[in-house]
């Protein structure tokens, strides 16, 4: 399916060359808006109603921020998406595709076809704070950081236990250090604003990393 790609610059999902970027054309039934201003560019899409699907790249915000919402009946051919990526780490192959309650199945199918055609894996989710992965892992990361403070085990042993015991490719402490604790702060603080339970509150070590990053320290 031919798709039109509109790049507003500084995409978090696609910071480097990718088949999805290479395959875009000037016109198409599906429109993909990427970059930091993808949501604002929605207004520039012509013939919006006649498109099979319009995909808007999201960061931590809800899709509703760009489409508007009403009484839980919202939903159109506009979908949100983000390629999952932890902080400074490379983006994964997983795209979270965000729908609203009344999003037509045909729009989801058209979006999936384009994304999967570019070699990406797609998980569909509702327009919830943190979508799937961040919503699930941020409390776990915060708990790991807190338990490190409480000396449940050394950082190495915490990581090793989760790798050997559950087959995770990386333990939480090493992973957060590699991808940036200050980034974890940003994501979990955004979720905490919406969800409000203590498990999303940034752990002390993430607060320290964020404050130091603000001062240009590492």
């Amino acid at each position: 399916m031919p798709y039109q790609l509109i790049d507003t610059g500084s995409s978090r999902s696609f910071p480097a060359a990718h088949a999805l970027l290479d395959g875009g054309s000037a016109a198409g039934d599906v429109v993909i808006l990427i970059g930091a201003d993808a949501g604002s560019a929605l207004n520039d899409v012509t013939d919006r109603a006649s498109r099979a699907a319009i995909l808007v790249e999201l960061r931590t915000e809800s899709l509703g921020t760009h489409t508007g919402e009403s009484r839980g009946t919202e939903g159109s051919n506009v979908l949100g998406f983000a390629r999952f990526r932890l902080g400074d780490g490379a983006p994964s192959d997983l795209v979270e595709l965000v729908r609203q309650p009344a999003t037509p199945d045909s729009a989801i199918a058209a979006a999936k076809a384009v994304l999967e055609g570019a070699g990406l894996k797609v998980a569909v989710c509702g327009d919830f704070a943190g979508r799937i992965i961040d919503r699930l892992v941020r409390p776990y990361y915060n708990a790991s950081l807190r338990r490190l403070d409480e000396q449940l085990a050394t950082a190495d042993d915490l990581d090793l236990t989760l790798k050997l015991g559950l087959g995770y490719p990386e333990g939480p402490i090493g992973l957060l250090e590699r991808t940036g604790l200050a980034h974890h702060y940003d994501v979990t603080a955004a979720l905490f604003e919406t969800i409000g339970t203590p498990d999303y509150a940034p752990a002390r070590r993430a607060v320290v990393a964020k404050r130091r990053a603000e001062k240009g320290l590492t």
Partner: protein
Amino acid sequence: MSSIKTVGVAGAGTMGAGIAIVAARAGFRTILYDTRQDTLDRARRQTEGFFAKSVQRGKLTAEAVETILGNLVGTTDIASMAECDMVIEAIFEDLKVKHGLFSDLNAVCPPHTIFASNTSTLSITEIAGGSGRPERVVGMHFCLPAQLMKLIEMSPGLTTAPEVFDAAWTFAEALGQRPVKTKDNPGFILNYFLVPFNNDAIRMVEAGVAEPADIDRAIKAGLGYPMGPLELLDLVGLDTQLLLCEALHGVTNDPRAACPPLVKRMIAANHLGRKSGRGFYNYDKDAMFGG
């Protein structure tokens, strides 16, 4: 070097049978004790099957397996445990039952014998308190399946003598396992993180954030985990998850450890996971054997 020569394993169920394989394979004389002969017989059949595969795969020679199996004996007589330098218990997860076993073993075993518990959720200090030798009790939490997984979470209780912990640690290494040191905390490391994590995934299904298959796909493709949380829960069993939640939440009061209501509804509907043919996914029970 470990001064331990003879190892006792109490409980020949899922974990005990695997732990006995680990001990015997590492060259220890191993006595597997259970109150039920049929359980011992099943463990023996499983063990022989396991080692037959090890030979087929070229991991062990037939002679080595013969020696290992000759060193591994089963018994329903607790008096046979008198020879053991170390006893690892893997019986029911119940403090009173574990106290009963350890006080019987305390009467049978020599004073130097170390008692280890494979408990997943109980306190090592509380188990030690009813053992008759609280300074010689340590936590040694193996992972399922014990015969394949290298990790042992090791925890001293408040009363454990440091030299006993050190001796158990050396023994764990002599088993060819990878010990990690943790505290006598509910769930140690693995279950402390895993049980609430899995509950969070269940609550996402409850809240309609995404379908189970989408959640699992996201976690596997996004983070490289070998299994998604809902697939894993189907394997563990929803009834087991309930028990783990009750044990952990009962001591920690952590809201994330509280059992999500959906689990109880699924248990009521007999959607226990793979073992009942349906959990978050449907399993065609005859898929492998049907014609």
